[in-house]
């Protein structure tokens, strides 16, 4: 008997004997990923959903103003190249961090790149109000669209490093991101639920901060929480960790501008 046919028959027999339901094996595993939006109180959810209550909308409006403002030596605005409404930016935020000219770039980094080369204006510092406003404005254009970060031959190495950072124990408390946000997600730390840590709503208006903040600010928060040396704002490590988190949340809809407690 042909070996192939033999193998097939054995396999078929196994399926029958073990009662393996092949349709179940083919079905994609149920997505258990969850945005931390669903862990919030109804009041906080309403704050995010209602455009008249969401304070992040102030940053969106500021961002639109900056978008149209001519600046730099070249005296051009973002709108000069990318259109007045910003609608052309739909889907852009879902692809970042992204390899641009051989370097992994976050959305904030790309905005600064545009500023320094396209407008010849000085780069904005991380957590600067204007940078947050522009980032929020651009990211909001992708609201509701699925996160589209994929593994590519170009970003493979960065993605691996990001994954490594996620699993690496750090700080005096010697904890990794994964120990809380993967292994213990849904359990409690102090009084609050541990979220799965999907960056679906950044930049966020965090009520604790009383202002908008970037994903990197949030990541530095956790790093100081475990008494680790924080990654620098705008560093390559940060971008790699961001990349891994966005890849981990791929397919989940972007909520920007989000509100978190």
């Amino acid at each position, binding site marked *: 008997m042909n070996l192939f046919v033999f193998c097939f028959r054995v396999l078929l027999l196994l399926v029958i004997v073990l009662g393996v339901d092949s349709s179940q094996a083919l079905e994609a595993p149920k997505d258990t990923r969850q945005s931390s939006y669903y862990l919030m109180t109804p009041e906080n959810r309403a704050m995010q959903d209602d455009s*008249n209550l969401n304070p992040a909308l*102030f940053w969106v409006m500021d961002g639109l103003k900056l978008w149209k403002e001519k600046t730099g030596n070249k005296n051009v605005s973002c709108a000069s190249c990318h259109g007045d409404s910003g609608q052309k930016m739909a889907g852009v935020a879902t692809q970042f961090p992204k390899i641009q000219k051989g370097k992994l770039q976050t959305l904030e980094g790309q905005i600064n790149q545009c500023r320094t080369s396209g407008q010849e204006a000085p780069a904005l510092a991380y957590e600067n109000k204007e940078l947050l406003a522009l980032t929020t404005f651009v990211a909001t254009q992708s609201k509701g669209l699925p996160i589209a970060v994929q593994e590519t031959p170009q970003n493979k190495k960065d993605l691996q490093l990001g994954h490594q950072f996620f699993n690496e124990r750090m700080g005096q408390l010697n904890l990794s991101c994964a120990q809380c946000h993967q292994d213990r997600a849904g359990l409690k730390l102090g009084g609050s639920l541990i979220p799965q840590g999907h960056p679906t709503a950044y930049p966020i208006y965090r009520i604790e901060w*009383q202002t908008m903040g970037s994903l990197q600010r949030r990541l530095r928060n956790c790093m100081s929480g475990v008494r680790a040396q924080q990654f620098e704002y705008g560093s390559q490590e940060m971008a790699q960790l961001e990349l891994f988190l966005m890849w981990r949340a791929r397919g989940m809809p972007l909520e920007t501008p989000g509100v978190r407690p």
Partner: protein
Amino acid sequence: MSKTSRTGITMPAQAKKGAIIEIRAIVQHDMETGYRYTEDGKRIPRDIIRLFTCQYNGEEVFRADFYPGIGANPLIIFTTVAVASGTLVFKWAGDDGYEAVNQAQITVP
């Protein structure tokens, strides 16, 4: 904080005479308490909104004093009775000459 900032009002455009209407007024403001210090030990001066008022056809129907304990971008939700068609004027005034004004129309058939 600049001398003025963005504000937002949410309230019904129309209401029956005598009905209780809910008004939401949000304002963009850092509400710097005056109790914080910079990294080099300098005190950051207080910069908060001190007073919020709402006038309904020229008559004051709501007033609130603000203190340093109130968070950034304060949202005030209050109610009033729809008595007549007209204009509601909302004013926020604060430290360092800060002032913001917004208004909304209501029709009471």
